[in-house]
């Protein structure tokens, strides 16, 4: 453990206290008929905290801040999800949160060495291609889910980290410009643009336009960093040009969006309270019903509304725990996103990767929270870490691992390929 032991212990105590406080609230104000439900929930949450605190030091990291925050947020979500409509441990969500923690470790281990990642670049493109193929062949045109018995998977979620990595690894290619006619172009930029277009088309085909802004956010973030590379300042012309193109694309998309999107764009939820505006209207009523301090865990009515645990989860939490608690939850996630500002990544590759992850998390949160509260069209995307859903949680966990990697990177050159090294040796002898 290379971090400060004292701060590690205090951070662990803080996380434990935060969860203990929430569990105490469940005990005192929660809606439960059997105390054992609260005990099981408390045992699961505190147990997971303790196990994670024991395991974490085995990983060599310069900081564990994100790990603590991730654990804090994930177990918060376990408590929230277990209280909707009555206190009872949500085992499925609990398991997916553990999976997200494992995914975070995997993300960290795979992404900490950018030189190695750079060599694996082709696999990102292949991965994205395979996932797109899976979507085309297995989900159907009106769906985004694959049903495997009790498990449902959303393959488009797994494209997100691969897309972030593809954007990040393309940075070094910016120095390899080729002249075509009078333009200096980078071939990889075309590849990325092509992939973005393909993803957009695929999302359109799946009728999952809600995820589009997330991909566009990641791409825009990577694009901005690429067009400015290697100079350390933004070119105004390029920025204005990019802004105009983005605006034009947005306007065209709005204009030619399919009927069901148009309905959502122009929906007056209060005039269509039992139709298209049902979820948003109920969400807002739920938030108003909860006030600052909530009705008490398990005492809301929003658990009767479809997708209360993911699409309108912010409102469900607000209703039961209060808007103040819901805002604190958002703040906890924001701190994860903010950490690259406080503890800067160690390389341009890692900072590009961190920016992509932050863009994805922020856009997703904005789409979910503002959409469910009728500030923007309702898209039905998830809030990272809080909404239920295995694919989303695993992806969010993995992407958090990418953030951890940007904080504790490894700069060892990758081991040379065996065949290649023996060939070089023979050449030297000759």
């Amino acid at each position: 453990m290379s971090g400060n032991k004292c701060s590690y212990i205090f951070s662990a105590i803080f996380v434990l206290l935060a969860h203990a406080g929430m569990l105490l609230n469940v005990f005192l104000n929660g809606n439960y008929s059997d105390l054992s439900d609260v005990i099981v929930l408390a045992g699961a949450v505190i147990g997971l905290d303790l196990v994670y605190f024991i395991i974490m030091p085995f990983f060599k990291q310069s900081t564990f801040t994100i790990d603590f925050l991730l654990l804090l947020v994930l177990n918060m979500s376990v408590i929230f999800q277990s209280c909707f409509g009555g206190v009872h441990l949500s085992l499925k969500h609990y398991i997916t949160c553990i999976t997200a923690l494992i995914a975070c470790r995997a993300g960290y281990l795979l992404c900490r060495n950018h030189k190695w990642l750079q060599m694996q670049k082709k696999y990102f493109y292949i991965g994205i291609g395979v996932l797109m193929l899976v979507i085309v062949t297995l989900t159907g045109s009106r769906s985004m889910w694959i049903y495997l018995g009790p498990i449902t998977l959303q393959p488009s979620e797994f494209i997100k980290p691969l897309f972030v990595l593809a954007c990040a690894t393309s940075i070094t290619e910016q120095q390899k410009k080729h002249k075509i006619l009078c333009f200096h172009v980078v071939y990889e930029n075309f590849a990325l643009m092509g992939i973005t277009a393909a993803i957009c088309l695929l999302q359109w085909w799946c009728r999952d336009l809600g995820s589009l802004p997330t991909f566009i956010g990641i791409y825009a973030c990577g694009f901005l960093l690429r067009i400015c590379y290697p100079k350390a300042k933004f070119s105004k012309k390029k920025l204005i040009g990019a802004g105009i193109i983005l605006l034009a694309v947005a306007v065209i998309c709005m204009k030619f969006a399919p009927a069901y999107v148009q309905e959502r764009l122009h929906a007056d939820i209060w005039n269509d309270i039992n139709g298209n505006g049902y979820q948003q209207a109920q969400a807002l009523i739920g938030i108003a019903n909860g006030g600052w301090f909530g009705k008490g865990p398990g005492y809301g009515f929003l658990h009767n509304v479809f997708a209360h645990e993911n699409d309108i989860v912010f409102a469900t939490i607000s209703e039961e725990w209060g808007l103040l608690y819901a805002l604190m939850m958002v703040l906890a996630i924001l701190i994860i996103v903010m950490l690259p500002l406080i503890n800067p990544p160690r390389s341009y590759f890692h900072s590009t990767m961190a920016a992509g992850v932050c863009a994805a998390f922020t856009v997703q949160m904005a789409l979910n929270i503002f959409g469910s509260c009728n500030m923007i069209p309702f898209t039905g995307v998830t809030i990272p870490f809080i909404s239920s859903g295995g694919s989303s949680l695993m992806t969010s966990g993995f992407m958090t691992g990418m953030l951890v990697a940007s904080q504790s990177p490894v700069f060892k050159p990758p081991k040379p390929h065996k065949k290649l090294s023996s060939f070089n040796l023979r050449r030297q002898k000759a």
Partner: protein
Amino acid sequence: MKSIKRCQGIISLFLVFFVAGMIALVIKIQREASFYMMHSENYELGMVYDRNGDVLFDGSGNEEYEDNYFIDVGNLIGDDKGQMTNTLVAQNLEKLNNYSFSAGLVREGGKAAIYTTLDHEANRAVYNAFGNQDGCAVAYNYKTGEILVCTSLPSLDVTKGYENISDFRSGTLISKTLYGTVPGSTQKVSTVIAALEIMGADTLFSKSFSCSGTYVNKSGDNIDCHNSYGHGTQNIQQAVENSCNPFFAQLIEDDDLPLSQVKKVYEKLGYAVNDDEEEYFDIDGIKCQKASTTLNDPYEFKTQWGCIGQGDTLVSPIQLMMWQSAIANESGEMTMPHLIDHTTDVYGKIKDNAKTQFSDRLFSSDTAETVKQILLTNGENHYTNLITGYKLGVKSGTAQVNEGNTENSLLVGFVDDPDLPVAFCILIEDKNNTSLKTENIAQIMLDALSQN
């Protein structure tokens, strides 16, 4: 390092947008939470009071009231049952809800209330004065805009529910003061205003037209006068006092009064001219129908008949009353009426204090002064003995409705007294079926208001 800072800049950009959105969201929720709650099944309504603290609506339903206690305000104050939508309660449920984002829904002891400007005692006196006769009356303070009396018959006691709704008489569920009615000769006030604005007082007073009981207009149609013997040759003052239809038909045909300009003045007054769509203005959330008329051709019967106040012309009693304020104030600006004086929130804290507001200038102050004098002279010459104790400017009207089969009686006017600055409009339906006169109602109304 600069490259890394650039990445941080982009992260900051995303965060700034998101945090700004979150702040906007919290403000939005704070401001609109009460509105959201009104769309749920959980709400707890407070009280509506009159200007003296008398209850006009009890949202709690805990207290007992005398039979028909609320009947004089039934179709104006309304309730939350959804049968009447254009009422004070229905349009202001959010203000009445004992809810705040901080306190939540307060079932007991919430102090959310609407304090109206109405004088319940005077309102009840006016309602009772109508007896079994249908009609409506509205009066307000033309200096402040406070609506003091507003009653419409038939009405209902909202505490009795709607089980017998099928037995309710036509018009029970609406306040007739808010909806267009044929104004009869009270419309001539608008025509006088238009003439004064276009040709000036000197020209108008210099004009005289004769009446022989019937006038055959330039299109060959008959314009009948209510006095079949005719009024002889008159000037504008006499014509107003006699309410002479042939005079006004000839005035509309006069070359000094181009119809295009009359149309402009009418539009300024708030008429929807030659427009089929109904338009409304707002009084504390309650919709009030805007005046409408048809002005096509100065020689056409329909246009002349409209300017006299029959046919297509429709004006709500409230709007007739509002024009009186522009005259009484000698400003040409209407005092905008309001029904809510202030509201209190769930803790009893006063908010939404009413402010006196005025319309844009509808006509010049010179015109206002001249019309005021015409109406005061009319009041002095014809109403001193009918409505005693008040210096009044008035204009009466008889409106033909149901294709001329029924006649309604109207009286609009104002009291020229700084201690009782009241403008009013009274409508009695089917006047030939009753001995009740608009001046009887006016007397009772003004007496009740002056005593309170």
